């Protein structure tokens, strides 16, 4: 077990411990906070595949987060009003089953990532950042001008969607779902990094010429990574919408893309536990500093600046040292 994996396991145990303690101490708000950390970390795990291993600086991951959110919002709103989404030529009705919503969210986000990636991965550097940003903003303005699903005001879902065998309205149960999703995503991301695919993707980040010279196509590697990355972030979006029982165009905004990126950078780009450490730190700062000042993001900005300048490996990098060996 590498130190990165060890720290990730420790962080997961800590997160679980906080939730269990909060249950015992009857602090449901703390459980919700832990759930939020797990879900945002999951979004970061998605981005970290593209950004950390692939070196793809995507400022458009809010598009996938939002697609996941709206997948939940659309399916659940039709289920709560008993109106079909589509009645001809065949009937598609809404649902309040979480597994179905997740599947739709992940597939829709993956398809969007495939399409966005296919176009944007033909560019590099600043152009790639700008094109992904532009796609994210396209979804944002589309959502604002979509009155059927709340437009600018967003869409409220009155009852949290269901999961077989659990009462999702019990904070600890919903935390369990988010925690389980994060654990699975971390296992997947860890396996991916050690797989031939991860090796090739990581090498393409470091030397595209070398990867091409051994007969592999960096574009295809990156497109697959971007698609998987989008699917995971979309899955997180569906959970986030269920946490708040609310979706709005804000999920698509470039600030959301920026926040997901901040989780990854604070925690450690390309480190397995990076998104978890980053999301945890961010939410705790929001919680503590938000009580002190409305301008708490100034402090986050200062910490981010400090991280980039003095600890480019983020929290995990500071604890483990170099990324490989």
């Amino acid at each position, binding site marked *: 077990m590498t130190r990165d994996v060890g720290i990730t396991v420790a962080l997961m145990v800590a997160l679980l411990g906080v939730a269990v303690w909060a249950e015992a101490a009857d602090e449901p708000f703390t459980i919700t906070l832990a759930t939020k950390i797990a879900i945002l970390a999951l979004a970061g795990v998605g981005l970290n595949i593209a950004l950390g291993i692939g070196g793809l600086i995507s400022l458009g991951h809010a598009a996938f987060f939002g697609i996941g959110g709206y997948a939940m919002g659309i399916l659940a709103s039709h289920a709560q009003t008993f109106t079909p989404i589509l009645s001809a030529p065949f009937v598609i009705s809404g649902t309040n089953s979480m597994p179905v919503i997740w599947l739709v969210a992940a597939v829709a986000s993956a398809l969007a990532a495939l399409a966005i990636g296919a176009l944007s991965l033909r560019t590099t550097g600043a152009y790639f950042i700008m094109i992904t940003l532009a796609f994210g903003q396209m979804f944002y303005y589309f959502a604002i001008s979509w009155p059927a699903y709340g437009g600018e005001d967003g869409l409220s879902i009155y009852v949290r969607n269901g999961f077989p065998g659990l009462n999702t309205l019990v904070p600890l149960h919903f935390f369990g779902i988010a925690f389980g999703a994060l654990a699975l995503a971390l296992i*997947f991301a860890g*396996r*991916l990094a*050690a*797989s*031939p*695919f*991860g*090796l*090739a993707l*990581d*090498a393409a980040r*470091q*030397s595209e*010429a*070398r*990867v*091409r*010279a*051994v*007969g*592999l*196509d960096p574009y*295809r*590697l990156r497109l*697959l990574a971007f698609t*998987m990355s989008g699917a995971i972030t979309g899955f997180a979006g569906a959970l986030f919408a269920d946490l708040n029982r609310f979706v709005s165009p804000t999920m698509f905004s470039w600030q959301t893309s920026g926040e997901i990126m901040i989780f990854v950078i604070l925690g450690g780009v390309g480190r397995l536990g990076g998104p978890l450490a980053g999301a945890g730190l961010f939410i705790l700062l929001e919680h503590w500093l938000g009580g002190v000042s409305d301008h708490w993001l100034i402090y986050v900005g200062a910490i981010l600046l400090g991280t980039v300048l003095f600890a480019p490996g983020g929290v995990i990098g500071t604890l483990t040292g*170099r*990324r*490989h*060996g």
Partner: protein
Amino acid sequence: MGKALLTVKGVSVRFGALQAVDAVSLDLYAGEIHALIGPNGAGKSTLIKLIAGDLVPDAGTVFFLSEDLTHSPTPVRARAGLARTFQISELAMEARVFDNAVLGALGAQGGAFNPVVRASTRKELTARARAALDRVGLSRSAGRRTADLSHGERRQLEVAVALTLAPRAFLMDEPMAGLGADGTSRMTALLSDLRSEAPILLVEHDMDVVFRLADRISVLDYGRLIASGTPGDIRADPAVRAAYLGDGG
């Protein structure tokens, strides 16, 4: 000599006003080291890039194993068996030495798209990587970070990665560049040994090495091929002496 594995016919490429390579033709036969020499800026590296697929020629053709690869992208040429080492090392510097070798083995297998199987458990990959590192004398450095290797070791690793592709021919762009006397003699021995497995098209500035190793030599000057033949022929060629070797050549 049999049939050439690699046949370059009349290739030209122009960068703005500069005719970098001008109607160059050459062959590479099994079992030989064919050296490409010429002054700086003569077009040697450009010609390697045209053959490897980094550049597409304005005119001419590149045939490898009877297949027209003139317009094929680099990965297709690599999968066809054309392995290449770079003038300036192109390696995954943050990765372990072993991982760079595994990367080559992956390319040879034509697939890197399984995201959940650990690379280290794929025996066919690791065995091939280990054999290649062994061959160039780097097996004891397998676990080291590539960026920590000396310059000479990086040159060896470049050759090892090329070897993992189980190539049908090598394109080597100055594999001795920057090596000390020891490194150069080790690399010379290695290349001499490799030619029986796959022929080498070798760009090299060190004339001692070239005349010791090469079975044939082609000389480029201002993008044109001014001479081609055995080391003896080249040494005696008046045009080559004037352009490059100097009277003492």
